[in-house]
């Protein structure tokens, strides 16, 4: 069992609150990813769960037991550090055996457990080498091996892949997902990389300045962000925000005015929001060249050709951020030449002035389960 509950957890350094009243339930066997920009408190939260930081307020409960004042070992957790934290003077075997040696396990038990961990992590051939001779990915696997020999209830990962190069990171993501399936243990994973979050998580916890901005499945966060922060944090490049004014609300949705165009956005509006300024969110990947339901003309200042896609950035009047659009494949787009682009109203997100989203009418279950049985 590895069920974790955070109740109103607070962490303050002097006057500054870094983690502000975070409450969260993590189910046994779940893969939960904490994600957020730097300084949002995600690592601090993880270190409190680990027992490396004192919890200023609130309760951390593992399997029904309050563990605030228990050392990490008694909490039944293990942690993998961003910097690997391997013992440089010990062989891979001794590194993995370290927690067992602390427990004074017998030599046979140690050998058996280390070898089975090494087999899972494909380190069988490396057991006698020192960490200095290993590549980054292998070192990270040793660090994971050290965590799994103790058979903890909960695994904590603190940005474990951020020191690896892009190709290796992709491999290790798949490895970690496989490991999670194989071990079936609860895993809590901190990262600032949304690709890692989207690909590995059962649920993502988006943190912003010490608060939980939203908790949900990866696709839920992408399609139904509850606020502008999550909308702009999840998805790359970031969602474009256009100022609009509400003109009418009906059961069909909310009608807004964008530069003189009347657009009907299919979201759940509230009565009495007519005339209020709103933010219209549209993701760069939902934009096409040419005319459509909603049209704007932009002048791209920079065009990035990636081969598989073409990304353009166009400054908008009165706005700090560039308007960004992503086209599939290689497109001929000339910099500094006005370009007519459009998007569909059903792809739009709508936020009020405080940044809270109006719920989109999207059936998420249709995306998570195959609509047609595969056996057919």
């Amino acid at each position: 069992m590895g069920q974790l509950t955070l109740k109103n957890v607070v962490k303050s350094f002097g006057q500054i609150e870094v983690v502000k009243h975070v409450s969260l339930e993590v189910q046994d066997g779940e893969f939960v990813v904490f994600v957020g920009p730097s300084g949002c408190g995600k690592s601090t939260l993880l270190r409190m769960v680990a027992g490396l930081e004192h919890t200023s307020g609130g309760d951390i409960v593992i399997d029904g037991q309050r563990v605030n004042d228990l050392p990490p070992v008694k909490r039944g957790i293990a942690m993998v550090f961003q910097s690997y934290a391997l013992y440089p003077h010990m062989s891979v075997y001794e590194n993995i055996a370290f927690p067992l040696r602390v427990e004074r396990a017998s030599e046979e038990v140690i050998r058996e457990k280390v070898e089975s961990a090494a087999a899972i992590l494909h380190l069988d051939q490396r057991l006698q080498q020192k960490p200095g001779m290993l590549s980054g990915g292998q070192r990270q696997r040793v660090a994971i091996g050290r965590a799994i020999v103790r058979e903890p209830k909960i695994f904590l990962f603190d940005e474990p892949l951020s020191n690896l190069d892009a190709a290796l990171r992709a491999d290790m993501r798949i490895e970690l997902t496989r490991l999670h399936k194989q071990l079936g243990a609860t895993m809590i994973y901190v990262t600032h990389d949304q690709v890692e979050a989207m690909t590995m998580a059962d649920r993502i916890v988006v943190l912003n300045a010490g608060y939980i901005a939203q908790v949900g499945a990866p696709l839920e966060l992408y399609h139904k962000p509850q606020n502008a922060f999550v909308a702009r944090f999840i998805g790359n490049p970031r969602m474009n925000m256009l100022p609009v004014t509400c003109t009418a609300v009906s059961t069909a949705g909310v009608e807004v005015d964008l530069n003189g165009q009347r657009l009907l956005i299919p979201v759940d509006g509230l009565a009495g929001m007519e005339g209020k300024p709103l933010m219209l969110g549209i993701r760069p990947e939902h934009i096409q060249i040419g005319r459509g339901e909603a049209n704007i003309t932009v002048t791209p200042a920079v065009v990035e050709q990636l081969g598989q896609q073409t990304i353009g950035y166009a400054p908008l009047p009165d706005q700090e951020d560039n308007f960004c659009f992503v086209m599939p494949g290689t497109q001929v787009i000339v910099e500094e030449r006005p370009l007519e682009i459009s998007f569909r109203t059903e792809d739009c997100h709508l936020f009020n002035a405080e940044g809270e989203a109006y719920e989109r009418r999207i059936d998420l279950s249709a995306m998570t389960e195959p609509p047609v049985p595969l056996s057919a």
Partner: protein
Amino acid sequence: MALFRKDDTAMIDRYRWWEIVGIYLGIFAFLFFLLSPFIEGFLVSLKPLSQLFSSPYTFWPENGSFAAYFDMWKTVPGFARYIFNSFFISIISTCIVLLLVVPAAYAFARFRFAGMGLVLGAFLAVSMFSGAVLLIPLFRLMRTLGLLNTYWAMIIPGAAFLIPSAIWLLRTYMMRIPTELNEAAYMDGASQFYTFRRVILPIARPGIVVVAIVTFIGAYSQQFIFALTFNSKTEYMPLPIGLYAFFGKQEVIWNELMAASFVGILPALVIIFFLQRHLVGGLTAGAVKQ
């Protein structure tokens, strides 16, 4: 450095011929200045005594021999004992210093505690005093403790004056050991002492060896003043005091004195040479990604 091959050296390592000559001239001048007393000392040890007082003075020994290196043992029969004493005092001092300094430096490197800055500052202040300033109070202290004319009279003050700088030296080294290693060991259930013994000590070994060398040299070179003041027993005399035995009533046997100095230094050089081989650089490589 490839001296004259230019093609395969990187641009940053290339020098013109006159730059290389200049560099070596500089090195030569510096080394000559530094080593000339030793060279002269060695030459003196090879000369017969009569030649030392000849006029005009010749630097180069005529019919020089190593005779002084054999005669010195006869002139001063206790000389082997003095070398042993020097060694004994330095080694015991070094052991005491290491025993106290290694845990202390770790504590100063890893933990925050009240008064830490003050204590570290006091250590610095203490090491600014030379032992000579404190000779009289130390003498009274030694007399009260009944330690005069024992080995301890030379070992204890020697070790005491070496501890502050050793703590500073080793603390700096230990601060470079990543904190994540402590945290990882803590996550794995290791106690502070277990972590210290199994993780920190092995990684800090090169730093400890450096401190051992520095302390040994320090103990070796500073024992003269303590031995002169706190000890009057011939059998406990260390080498620098023992050298006085070559000062006769009528004349000083310079050539044997020089020979004895070199013979006395030799074992220390051998020890340092062996310790130096343990200075394995880059032992922390692979611990954490930096």
